[in-house]
């Protein structure tokens, strides 16, 4: 009995978080009875201690550049970066570069995700596909994406087509791997329940396997979004043609304009953060009700 309870605790996070608590009298568990607490104002909710380090770094940077201790064109002042940022925004250069990058990221993400879902489901559901494609896929996974750049540039040139192919690959791998894993990880206990209720194969897939695998599939999509954004930068850097935020960085570095480089870095960071936040918000909306663990 104690062993069973102990083992259950491993399952607890997945299934029923209240199994281990003493529920004298089948009490209403707190999670269900608790009314929504009033939210604190934003200023009190955010932990501002995390801002100390960046603010200190910027202050030191500003102090050094103001004091003119270092005589180098490579050290630019924060003011100059701000001026460049303003100029980039007003001239529309930022919009042009960022929209080009995001369009690429989006098309690569969509193509890669669709391919990944197809490949992952095939690997997850079909034993034949697992036997035939599985070993190749597992080997392919191990090859660094950047190793394909020479081949891609030979086949597709340096333009948008080559970049989208590269991005699609970056998105396909995590989606396919997580879709396949998610399908394989569906507890056999659930499949037995479905058998007891005489579910057809299609009902089993639709009503049991897909919902059970959904969190894992979503993790794959989330990673694909992040990877394809990272790969967007890589593609623009290595397949230099056209415009994009990566090209802004290259221009800055070639012209020794550190203000432009730093501005580009900030834009890349903020965009990545925004994509991450977007994915998290979608995930929370999808899984908040299902389990407390998934929402965190």
């Amino acid at each position, binding site marked *: 009995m104690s062993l069973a309870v102990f083992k259950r605790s491993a399952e607890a996070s997945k299934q*029923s978080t209240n199994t281990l608590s003493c529920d004298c009298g089948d009490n209403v568990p707190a999670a269900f009875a608790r009314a929504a607490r009033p939210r604190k104002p934003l200023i009190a909710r955010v932990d501002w201690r995390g801002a100390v380090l960046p603010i200190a770094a910027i202050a030191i940077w500003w102090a050094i550049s103001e004091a003119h201790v270092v005589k180098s064109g490579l050290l630019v002042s924060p003011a100059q970066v701000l001026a460049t940022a303003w100029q980039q925004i007003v001239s529309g250069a930022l919009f042009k570069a960022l929209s080009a990058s995001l369009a690429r990221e989006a098309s690569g993400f969509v193509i890669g995700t669709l391919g990944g879902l197809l490949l992952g489901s095939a690997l997850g559901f079909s034993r034949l596909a697992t036997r035939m494609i599985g070993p190749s896929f597992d080997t392919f996974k191990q090859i660094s994406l950047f190793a394909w750049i020479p081949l891609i540039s030979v086949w597709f040139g340096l333009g948008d087509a080559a970049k989208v192919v590269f991005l699609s690959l970056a998105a396909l791998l995590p989606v396919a791997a997580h879709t396949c894993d998610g399908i394989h990880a569906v507890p056999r206990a659930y499949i037995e329940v479905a058998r*007891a209720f005489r579910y057809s194969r299609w009902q089993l897939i639709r009503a049991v396997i897909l919902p059970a695998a959904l969190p894992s599939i979503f993790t794959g999509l989330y990673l694909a979004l992040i990877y394809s954004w990272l790969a967007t930068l890589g593609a623009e850097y290595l397949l230099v043609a056209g415009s994009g935020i990566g090209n802004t960085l290259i221009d800055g570095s070639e012209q020794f304009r550190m203000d432009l480089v730093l501005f580009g870095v900030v834009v890349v960071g903020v965009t990545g953060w925004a994509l991450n936040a977007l994915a998290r918000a979608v995930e929370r909306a999808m899984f908040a009700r299902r389990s407390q663990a998934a929402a965190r």
Partner: protein
Amino acid sequence: MTSSTLSDSIDILHVSKRYARQDGTPLAVLDDISLRVRPGEFVSVLGSSGCGKSTLLRLIAGLDTDYNGEIVVAGDKVRDTSLERGIVFQDHRLFPWLTASQNVLAALRNAPLSAKQKRDAVAQHIALVGLNGFEHAYPHQLSGGMAQRVAIARGLVNRPRVLLLDEPFSALDALTRGRLQDELQRIWEHEGITMILVTHDVDEALYLGDRVVTMAPRPGRIKRIVDVALPRARDRNDPRFIRLREEVLADFAGHDGERGEDDTPHGGTRIPIVNPPITEWRLAW
């Protein structure tokens, strides 16, 4: 389901079950089990872990059809799972992405009922297990006892002839377990269906069963069938109840020499079973 005729009985005839071990030698799990369960009867199957009692239940459910012998329910040989046989597992096995009532409804997916009839059946069974007000709670919001209530409602909602219960209360604390046992007895009396309860709890077996079938391990076989001719609701402190309990316990104690090695059968090599049953971690078989 109201007119329980003689043909509603469950006949288990010379059932044997073996698993192939990794080295190819078969491992006998059940050996020549014969048992007749009368319509509307409550039978407890009692045994220590590894005696094959859960395997027997899975065979009756139709989750495992690879065995020798015959299991006949209401005149038909068991070949597959059936909505006529509901099952409640030890771990409640509710789908975490569905609410309590959706989980019960999931059992009705292939029932020949209209959408409205299904809704009514779900509401009725949620009420039967006393979970009014929790229809829209997700499994993670329910306590272990409440989740098991949902699982019982799910097992009953198809109005099966038989409800099979595989150690349904063993993961619950003592107070909740006692309450759910009373609840189950009430439901059994109310619905008038046949129930087969697998348990390793002597007290539970005697408290609920019309008959208690005790099993001995390796290979799993029926040792004794005890008639519990005590009026319900039973009193655990009734001297007759205590005497029966002593008797059954003594039966198991007499077995102790074997049981010592039972915990690690075959020199601790419990793992090398090819094709283990899908009872995941709970039992070796």
